[in-house]
């Protein structure tokens, strides 16, 4: 029985890791680029500086891991919210496809774009 559902425990591990990363890095990153820089509260980094930061191999890896896990975290939780909050059990397969599919696509895009940084 446990073998068939081996995916659920692994999804939960990914979800938890994503939750930790999202909690640690999410607020500061969104605050900086979504609020602080646009409002001029802090000096916006120059293009060259950002290129240097993003080009760093450690930063590349961390960003890909962060993006992938945070997306899985979001997908996993959102799927359960739709399932429990709106009680749309009959759409279960569709919801799973959209949520996890989106997370997988997003992760691939993240890996590709981080690799593409000159």
């Amino acid at each position, binding site marked *: *029985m446990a073998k068939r559902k*081996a995916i*659920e*425990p*692994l999804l939960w591990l990914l979800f938890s890791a994503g939750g930790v990363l999202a909690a640690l890095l999410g607020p500061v990153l969104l605050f900086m680029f979504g609020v602080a820089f646009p409002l001029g509260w802090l000096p916006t980094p120059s293009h060259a500086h950002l290129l240097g930061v993003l080009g760093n191999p450690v930063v590349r890896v961390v960003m890909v891991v962060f993006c992938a896990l945070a997306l899985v975290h979001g997908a996993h939780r959102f799927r359960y919210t739709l399932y429990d909050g709106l009680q749309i059990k009959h759409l279960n397969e569709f919801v799973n496809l959209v949520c996890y599919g989106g997370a997988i696509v997003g992760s691939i895009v993240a890996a590709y774009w981080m690799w593409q940084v000159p």
Partner: protein
Amino acid sequence: MPDRITLEVARYRPENESAISFQKFEVPCHKEWVVLDGLNYIKDQLDGTLSYRWSCRMGVCGSCGMNVNGEPKLTCATFLADYAPGPVRVEPMTNFPLIRDLVVEIGDFMRKLTEVKPWIVRRKEKPLSEGEYLQTPSELDEYKQFSMCINCLLCYAACPIYGLEPDFIGPAAIALAQRYNLDSRDEGASERLDILSQHEGIWGCTFVGECSKVCPKDVDPAGAIQRYKLSASLASLKRLLMPWGAE
């Protein structure tokens, strides 16, 4: 403090009704009276047809769980004076089928509890001649909190997942499974894992946390379930990466 308080009690008499109705009763409001005292007063003096469960009246039997003003509570541990001037709404616990008045059907839980094997499982029983199982105080502390469960089912009334998913095994049953998993004398952890590592088991839980909030014995079933998720997922990972190390 007023000397009388109104109880709005849910009534359901299946022979005549197909829905719940509310009946108002005025009962004395003594300083030390609990909701259960009010219900007993109603049954003794005002309406003998009121049906409800109760037993020890001191918070150890788990019989008197009901929704008081929308919150799952033990009626023997809920003081009337705290709700003065009232009225106090007394309803059957949520998420359970209703048999009559304030009495709910708990057969579903009884069946699920048996499924999780809440007893010491040994691959081979120790013969009597070898003496008793020994356990240190710190080994006892590992599971003691989860052994405090009185099966009052307030956690099931509070858990929205149990209300939405009839197959969900539920907080108390999983906490009791953990109580045995963490017991140093037990060897049944992998058997219970097969049963509980399912969508109806631990993976259906989304850590709402209401169960631990309403628990009258501080069992913290939500914590038990989250810890179980971690150990179950690590066990699954181990099984995946090292299938030869059979558990």
